[in-house]
């Protein structure tokens, strides 16, 4: 029984990753988008080093949130359109696992490029090297939470305009933004940042079961 669930999970994950990798735009777009957004800030405000360093946590986090929401409606919409999602739901396998596999896949194809892009941006925004590790840790937790939230928004706005899911999701992403920037800016100021990281971890720990269940509920809305 246990291995069945794992098989199902890896089957979905493998299938979705394969589809994503056959189309290079899925994982290149977030990376490019992130770098474009980040490079706009020095152009629009000021290329001064100290100023950019104080701005960097916020800039990186805003870019991360926006680019993780960039392709969020594709999590379910294509499978919904061609009927694959119907087939997944009529199988006896738990739909919770399906949603989690899809979220994980979305994180792998957008979250990891975002991490790479933020590493590049931390250099061009003159972030001190000591704050690099906390930034990556907070981004791992935060972008995964964003993928979960985005999946919920995508499920709620299935078959409707893509902008709707962003409007639904963005207000709920503000706690992540606040915590994430708090981690990076306290790391810059040599303060203790572990508390904020723990809160982000707690949000993720509640979010994985809670948001996956609610996403299943939201998808089922379309089959009535």
């Amino acid at each position, binding site marked *: 029984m246990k291995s069945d669930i794992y098989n199902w999970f890896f089957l979905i994950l493998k299938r979705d990753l394969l589809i994503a990798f056959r189309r290079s735009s899925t994982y290149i777009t977030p990376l490019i988008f992130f770098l474009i957004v980040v490079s706009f800030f020095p152009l629009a405000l000021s290329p001064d080093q100290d100023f950019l360093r104080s701005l960097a946590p916020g800039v990186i986090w805003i870019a991360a949130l926006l680019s993780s929401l960039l392709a969020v409606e594709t999590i379910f919409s294509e499978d919904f359109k061609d009927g694959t999602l119907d087939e997944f739901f009529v199988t006896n396998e738990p739909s919770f696992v399906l949603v989690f596999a899809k979220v994980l896949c979305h994180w792998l194809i957008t979250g990891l490029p975002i991490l790479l892009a933020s590493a590049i941006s931390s250099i061009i925004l003159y972030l001190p090297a000591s704050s690099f590790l906390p930034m990556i840790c907070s981004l791992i937790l935060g972008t995964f939470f964003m993928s979960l*939230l985005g999946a*919920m928004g995508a499920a*709620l*706005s299935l078959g*409707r305009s893509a902008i*709707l899911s962003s*409007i*639904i999701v*963005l*207000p*709920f992403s*503000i*706690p992540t933004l606040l915590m994430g920037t708090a981690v990076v800016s306290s790391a810059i100021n040599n303060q203790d940042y572990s508390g904020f990281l723990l809160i982000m971890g707690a*949000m993720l720990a*509640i979010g994985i079961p*809670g*948001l996956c269940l*609610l996403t299943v*509920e*939201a998808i089922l*809305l379309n089959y*009535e």
Partner: protein
Amino acid sequence: MSRIWNFIKSWTVEMGSPPLFFQWSSKALPWLAIISIIVFSIGMVWGIFYSPTDYKQGDVYRIIYIHVPSAILGQSILMFMAICGFITVVWRVKISGMLIKSAASIGASFTLIALITGSIWGKPTWGTWWVWDARLTSTLILFFIYTAIIGLHSSLDDKTKADRAISILSLVGIAIIPIIKKSVDWWYTLHQPSTFTLSSAPSMAPDMYQPLLVCVLGFYLIFAFLLTMNLRAEIVFREKNKTWVSKQYLNRQKNDK
């Protein structure tokens, strides 16, 4: 024990069926209106004319009698919506879905009132209209959450589906409430910490907080009144093709003649 529970469940489901609710709420509505207006006016008049002047802020502080109750309402309406959302998702009770929809616009209005009165109060006391303080910001987030819920509901055509969609969203939104509550202690900047806590005595003069309590009660009653009105409108709109609605209004037309 289980018999009592079953009784409560069947009773609430029966009373919550749209036609029955419509009937008994038409009898309850005038009383609710009278009581809420009386309590609200007592609180307002007491607070604005008979409470003592603050030695530091002068008469400006009297805006507290609108600001604090509407801020409290803004948060507790979201909690109410989340409870209704849980009931909608788990038991698929029709009327609780309509309750969320009816409560959302009221909650958004109260949050907006709290934000506006807060900035009117902030100008003379803090010297600015707006500060990026944790408490203010989280109230603004609360307002955005309400707009997201209302926007999602209006974008879906099937209204029973839309009810369940926003119940999911309000369940997620409830996660923001602890952050709002705790934010004052975490990022204390300019906004004072909450005066009312259940565990300790209020730090305000009793002459000032007694009318405030009446105001909070009055706002809750006004909310109940507005919610019932909204819900009745929603019920009639949803069930306009049902026979009981046409009967209700046909009878009324006959009586009017």
